Every structure is written in C-alpha cells, then in structure tokens.
C-alpha cells in the first residue's frame, strides 16, 4: 500500500514532464493527458483512503521512505512520505478538486494555442501540492512549498503577453519568497535546536511524544512565528496578502484551483501540521489568531468594494482563510474546524470561481460586475451552481459553510477570556460582511437588468451557457458544497477522523452553542438584507460611484499596495541605483584612480628619456658614483 503514495505524486509529475518536454506533437491531446493523469492520482488517493478507513484509527499513518536526499553528518534529509488522516484529507481535496478543474479547463482553455503548456503547469502544481502535504520532513515540505509557488508563478503569468499578468506573477513569487524565508529560518532553527526537522522525531506521533516537548517555550515561539510568516506568505494573510488580488490575472481555473481551493490553504496545513509546536507556544498561537482575525476582516472589507468579480472573490478567499488561520491559532479547539472549513471552502469557493469563469466565458472575458446583470436567464446552470456556492459561503443553515464557519465562531468564543470575546466578535462581524459582499456579487451578476454594452469594436457579448465539460465540474462542486458540511458533522465523523493527528477538545464556551449559532445566522441575515437594500432594490449604476472613504480605501486594498510601492519598490530602486553609483565611483574609482596616477607618473618619468647620449652617460656615471659611495659607506660602517 505504502508504495502508492509515491505514485500519487508521480502521476501528475509524469504528466508535467511529458507535456512540457513533449513539444508540439502533443498539442492536440495534451489537455486529455493532463486530465487523465490527474484523475489517476485521484484514483490512487481514493484507494489509499479506503485502505486507511480499513485501519484502526491509531494505525492510520503510512510512511514511505524513497531515498536519502541530503546527508551531511548530522544533517539528514530524506525523500520520505507520510500519509495520515490530515494529509489524506488534503490529498483527496487536491486531487479531487484538481481533477474537476482539469476537466473544466479542457473547455475553458479550448481556444488557447498554448493549452498543452497550461495543462503541464497544472499537473506540475498538483505534483508540488501533493509533495507539500505528503512530505515527511519540513525540508521536503519546503520543496513542495516552493514548487507550488513556482506553479502559481507560471500560471498567474500564463498570459505573459499581458504586462499586468507578468507583473502579478512576479509579485506573487516575491511575496511568497518573503514567506519562504520564514520557513527556511524555521527549519534552520529546528536543526540548530533539535538536530532534525523530520515530523516523526520532532512532532511525535503514533503515541510517543516528539522532541518539541523538551524544548523551552521561547524556542518554540520563535519557530512558531517563523512558520506563521511562511503561512502568511502562502495563504495571503496580512501583512503578506497583497499578491492574491493581482493573482486574479491568471486564467480563472487557476484562480479556482490554486488561489481558492488548495495552494492558499497550505499555510493552514503548515500551522495544523505543526500543531505540536504551537500548542506549546501560546504567544505564537495568539499572534496566529490575531493575524487570522485581522485578515478575515481585511479580506471581507476589500471584497465589499471590488467591482471585478474575481477580485471580489479573491477578497472573500482571503477572509475565509482568515477564518481558518484563526481557527488553527486556537489550538486543539480549532484545528479540526480549520481543516473542515478548509475542505468545504475548497468546494464552494472553487465552485464560485468556476461559476465566475463560466460567466466570463459567456461575456467575452468581461470581469466588471457592473457590466453584468440579469444573467440568470442566460446561463441557468451557472446561476444555480453559483447560487448554491453563494448560500454555502454565507453560511446558510444546512449548507456546508454553515457548519464549518459556525464551528469556528464557536471555537473562537470557546477560547475563553477577553481574547475569546474579541476573536468571536470579529468572526461574527466577518460573517455579516461575508453575507453582504457575496449577496452583492450575486445580485450584481445574476439579478437586475442587463447592463452590458457593445465594446469598442462593436460586438456585443452574447451570454450563453457553457459547454458540458465546464458545467459538470461546477455541478459536482455545487453538490459538494451543499452536502459536505452535513456529512462531516454526521456523528461528528470528521472530528473523529482527524482527532488522532490534531487532537481535539471542546474548550469552555461562555455561551451555549445554540446562542452562537443564532447570532451567526442573525449576522448573516443582516448582511444579506443590507446588500439587498443597496443592490437589489435600486438599479446598479454602470460606473462605480465615488463612494465613502472606506469604500475608496477598500478598492485600493486599503492602500497596502501603495505602501509597498512607496516604501519597498521606490526605496529599493533608489538603494540599488545609489549602490550602482557607489560601486562604479567608489569601489571601482579607487582602483582606476591608482591606475591613472601610476600612468601619470610614468608619463612624467618618460621626459628623462630625452635621447641625448650624454645625459644617459651622466645618469650612468652618477649611478656608478653612488654605488661606489655606497660600498665605501658599507666598508666604513
């Protein structure tokens, strides 16, 4: 059984290799190769899942050791995989959603001549993501971590002829690199203090405790904060969130797979996986929760102001991941719910993005929601699936989002103490705002009157339903986003499933679960109502009104990009330019100055060379005289 684990990664990796090196002769069938291999990987995942289910909950950890990767004295890094309940969950999510999105892309990218490469990149992403979640040590995880970063770079910048896309891709990679720095420093700290960075000995598992138990809290806090930095980069958490909005330059399936369902949740995986470290470092946990809370509000506010449907969804993604990080920061109370929300979010957010993609597909790639309106007539399937996703995300009772988000809010309160109240309040507020902006998106897109005009070269978009190959994945995901939550809570199966890895306790909620649920629903209703009042009752203006200060700030991502631009970009440019000057004038100048002075001196010396044999004779004669004098002096002394 263990050997299947490698195959999980091998299949998409093979696909990537074949598609990227295959050359033009594969252009015709490329997309199908990619899709097939991704489904194959999914099949392996299912088989392994069945195998795990067959095992006793405590023995549900498979490890596969391939070969020793780096080995220098005490520094040991192996290529080894670890499949337990946590990674299994991710494997299913990644391969499942991934495969669906492959399928969707077959239709979506139909007319792109560089389709083959697109699927190659997608497969590369799958492989890297699987490596990330299956790695048995932090260094190998780091490989996957940067691998997904690379894939996201390639896919965001897939339409490279658009400068905006290229810039966005670069930005994403760079911001992620800042996070990666955190991860690598964390690994170094682990090696420095524990002499290893493998999950088993470090974090423990299968019953026996890991080394982290023996470490002081300060050390673990340091490691935890570094891991958090990494998570912030990858999961677009404040303050490293700025890349996610621009990442929407990529093709929509990419946004769905990478920037909604899977890659951006890697940070949550990292924190949950390192739970043993965070559990022993309360300060680090507190910072994690704060980051999560801030981000969930930040993303929500940004999401409210965007007219670009994908950017609005991106804001919502940010905010939802904020929820997960918040939950992950709560420790054993929240780990399970973080993962649960992660999975459900994977379903409905992917569905929403695919819906958005389908809308754009029908609207000549128009992304401005103010140019949509009343589309429900034209694309019913999209409308329904999108609607289900919408209900799921705002936490409509009974749908998946409801269960997972509600649990997180409860957990936040259950943390207890003041911070419990604050965090819980933030989460509630977030739920209200979520409801608001998602309703806004829904209304502006599918309801009201049609607002699209012919574009400059006069061809008016003819909105139409997307082909089957695109709608089927949307339907599947919609079903998932409806049913998942309910399934997971059926005899709290999900909790039992993950408990052996993450542990779980209920904390001590200051309020009863019912009250909190009620509050959540109430907030949701309020949000929807406000949104309806603003966008449902009166027609939506085709050009954005100036809006309040907050709105304008939110449109500009709360000025975070401007800050980066002024401080980092401008400053960096000045720094490098001045350094270039220094290098040329100072460092090089010293050398050239020496050379010049020597040249000048010799030029002056040359004058002595006047060609008169008599002056030569004088110098020679004088020289002899001096020599004699010297010898005499020597004798005298």
């Amino acid at each position: 059984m263990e050997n299947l684990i490698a195959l999980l990664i091998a299949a998409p990796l093979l696909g990537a290799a074949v598609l990227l090196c295959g050359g033009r002769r594969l252009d015709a069938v490329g997309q199908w190769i990619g899709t097939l291999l991704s489904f194959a990987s999914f099949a392996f995942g299912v088989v392994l899942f069945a195998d795990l289910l067959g095992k006793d909950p405590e023995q549900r950890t498979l490890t596969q050791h391939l070969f020793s990767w780096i080995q220098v004295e005490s520094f040991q890094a192996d290529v080894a995989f670890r499949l337990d309940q946590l990674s299994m969950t991710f494997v299913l999510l990644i391969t499942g959603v991934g495969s669906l999105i492959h399928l969707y892309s077959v239709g979506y990218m139909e007319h792109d001549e560089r389709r083959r490469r697109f699927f190659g990149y997608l497969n590369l992403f799958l492989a890297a993501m699987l490596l990330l979640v299956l790695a048995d040590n932090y260094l190998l995880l780091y490989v996957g971590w940067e691998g997904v970063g690379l894939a996201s770079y390639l896919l965001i910048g897939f339409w490279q002829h658009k400068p905006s896309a290229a810039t966005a891709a670069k930005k994403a990679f760079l911001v992620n690199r800042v996070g990666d720095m955190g991860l690598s420093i964390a690994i170094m700290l682990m090696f420095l203090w524990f002499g290893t960075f493998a999950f088993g000995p470090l974090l423990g598992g299968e019953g026996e405790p890991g080394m982290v138990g023996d470490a002081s809290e300060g050390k673990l806090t340091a490691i935890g904060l570094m891991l958090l930095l990494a998570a912030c980069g990858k999961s677009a958490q404040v303050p490293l969130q700025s890349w996610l909005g621009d990442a929407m330059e990529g093709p929509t399936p990419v946004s769905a797979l990478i920037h909604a369902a899977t890659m951006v949740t890697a940070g949550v995986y990292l924190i949950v996986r390192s739970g043993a470290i965070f559990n022993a470092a309360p300060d680090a946990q507190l910072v994690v929760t704060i980051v999560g809370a801030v981000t969930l509000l930040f993303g929500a506010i940004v999401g409210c102001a965007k007219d670009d449907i994908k950017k609005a969804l991106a804001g919502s993604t940010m905010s939802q991941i904020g929820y997960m990080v918040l939950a992950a920061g709560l420790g054993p109370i929240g780990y399970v719910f973080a993962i649960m929300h992660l999975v459900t979010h994977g379903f409905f957010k992917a569905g929403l993005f695919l819906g958005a993609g389908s809308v754009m597909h029908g609207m000549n790639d128009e992304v401005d929601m103010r140019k949509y309106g009343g589309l429900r007539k034209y694309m019913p399937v999209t409308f329904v699936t999108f609607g289900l996703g919408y209900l799921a995300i705002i936490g409509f009772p009974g749908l998946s989002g409801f269960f997972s988000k509600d649990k997180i809010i409860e957990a936040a309160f259950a943390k207890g103490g003041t911070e419990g109240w604050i965090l819980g309040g933030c989460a509630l507020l977030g739920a209200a705002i979520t409801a608001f902006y998602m309703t806004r998106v829904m209304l502006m897109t599918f309801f009201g009157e049609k607002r699209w005009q012919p574009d400059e070269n006069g061809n008016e978009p003819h909105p139409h339903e997307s082909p089957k190959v695109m709608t089927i994945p949307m339907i599947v995901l919609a079903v998932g986003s409806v049913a998942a939550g309910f399934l997971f809570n059926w005899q709290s199966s999900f909790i039992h499933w993950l408990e052996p890895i993450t542990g779980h306790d209920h904390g001590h909620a200051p309020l009863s679960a019912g009250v909190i649920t009620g509050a959540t629903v109430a907030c949701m209703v309020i949000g929807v109502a406000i949104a309806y009042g603003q966008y449902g009752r009166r027609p939506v203006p085709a050009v954005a009104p100036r809006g309040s200060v907050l709105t304008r700030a939110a449109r500009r991502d709360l000025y975070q990009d401007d800050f980066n631009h002024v401080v980092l970009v401008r400053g960096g440019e000045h720094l490098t330019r001045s350094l270039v000057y220094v290098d040329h004038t100072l460092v090089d100048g010293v050398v050239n100055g020496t050379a010049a002075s020597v040249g000048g001196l010799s030029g002056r010396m040359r004058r002595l060379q006047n060609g008169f044999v008599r002056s030569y004779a004088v110098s020679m004669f004088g020289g002899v005289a001096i020599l004699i004098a010297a010898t005499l002096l020597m004798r005298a002394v």
Partner: protein
Amino acid sequence: MSAQLAAYSTSTGEAFQFWVLGTVAVIGALCTVFMKKAVHSALCLAGTMIILAVFYLANGAYFLGIVQIVVYTGAIMMLFLFVVMLVGVTAADSLKETIKGQRWLALLCGLGFGILLIGGIGNASITEFNGLAQANANGNVEGLAALIFTKYVFAFEITGALLITAAIGAMVLTHRERTERAKTQRELSEERIREGKHIPPLPAPGVYARHNAVDIAGLLPDGTPSDLTVSKTLRERGQIRDVSTEALNDLKALEQRAEERLERTAIEPSTFKRPEEASK
C-alpha cells in the same frame, strides 16, 4: 728602518719628476677637455700621454713606456688628427651647452667621483711596497714576454684576432661603394641650368690680379666681398682675408697721385669710407 723607508718611498729625483710632470699632465688633461678646437685638444692629450709614458718608465715598465710613446702618441693620436682633418671644424666645437643642467651635473659627477676615488685610495691601506727589482731581474721585456707567451697566451691570441677584426671593421665602415655613375660635366651644367642659380662656374678668388691667394674673397662690383669665391672650410674657420676696403683705398690713392701729376686743384684727400662704415 731605512729598508722600511725604502719600502715606502722613492728617490727624491722621482718625487721631483712626479710633482713637476704630474702638474703638467693634469693641466694637459684639463686642456684636452676645455680647448675649443679639436686639434688643440688632441695636441694636449698627446702631451699628457707622453708624460704618462715617462711615468711608466719611472715605474719600471720600460716596455710599456716605449709602447705608449710609439703606439699611442705616435699612431693613435696621429689617427685622431687625421680624422679631425677629415671632419674639419664643426659647430660641435663650441663649448656652449645645449642640454639644460648637463654641464653642472657633469662637473658635479666628475668632482664627486674624483673625491670618492681619492678618498677610497686614501682609505686603502697599501702597506708593503716591493719594487720590480727581481721581477725585472732578467729584463722587463723578457719578463713580459715570458708571461704573455705562457700565462696570457690565449688572451694574447684573442687580442690579435680582435685587432684584425677591428682593422677589417674600420675598412668596412669607412669604405663607401659608389652605387651610381659619376655625373658628367654635361649633366652637371644641365642641372645648374635647371636649378637656375650659379649658371656660370663659381667666381675665382683674388682681386685685381693683386691678391690671388685662395683665402681672399673676390669683390662684387659694389666692392663687397663674395663668399662664393672661397672654399667652405676656410669660410667656416673664418680664415678669410677681406681686402675690399684696402683695395678701394689704393684706388683712391692712385687717382690722387694722378691729380698731383696733372697739377689739378686737389680735392681734399679723404680716405674712402664704405657706405655702411660711413653710416656708423
């Protein structure tokens, strides 16, 4: 004691000779350096060399002394004189220095060098002084010969080879192969015509059939001397006798005498002045 003294000193006669001739030698050397004309330098040098020859003799180097006189003074210096004659007088003879500071540097070096040498010799402790008595026992020349043909025979042979080489070298250097045919008179005259100057042959020296020596410049109609009439070398040496004024004065005197003979009212006798002199 006296033996010691003998070891350290020489006869008063030699001392006297040394001081007198030494002074002369130094003066000769200085003249060699500072005489304006090469000829004079050569003569002074010859003098110095002869004195040196005397010193050689005094030092018991009889053979060398003779050789010095015969070879150096007799042959080499004559060679110098020949060359001086060939080259003639050149601008190089002037003692005016052209390179800045050269002279002072040279004097400084020479002075310093001399002082150093003398100082060095002064320091050197030359204790024992055994004359050439037994070295020259059976004749100086024989002694030399014995050495030359035994110990220094190779050096001797090599110097011989060197002399031969030098002789050949001198010939090679001075001998000039005539590459082009000598110009005929016809060609020369045609050349002159083409250049358009001195179409007639150069004027002859001498004046009024009185002075026909080669060093007297012929006079132009206005009475000024023409340098074309005397040879270049004389000109450069400045050995031209200018007889123009004297000739004109003679003419004047002749006319005057003619007047007296014809009892004419004499014009006041005034020596003729050349216009430029009058203007002065």
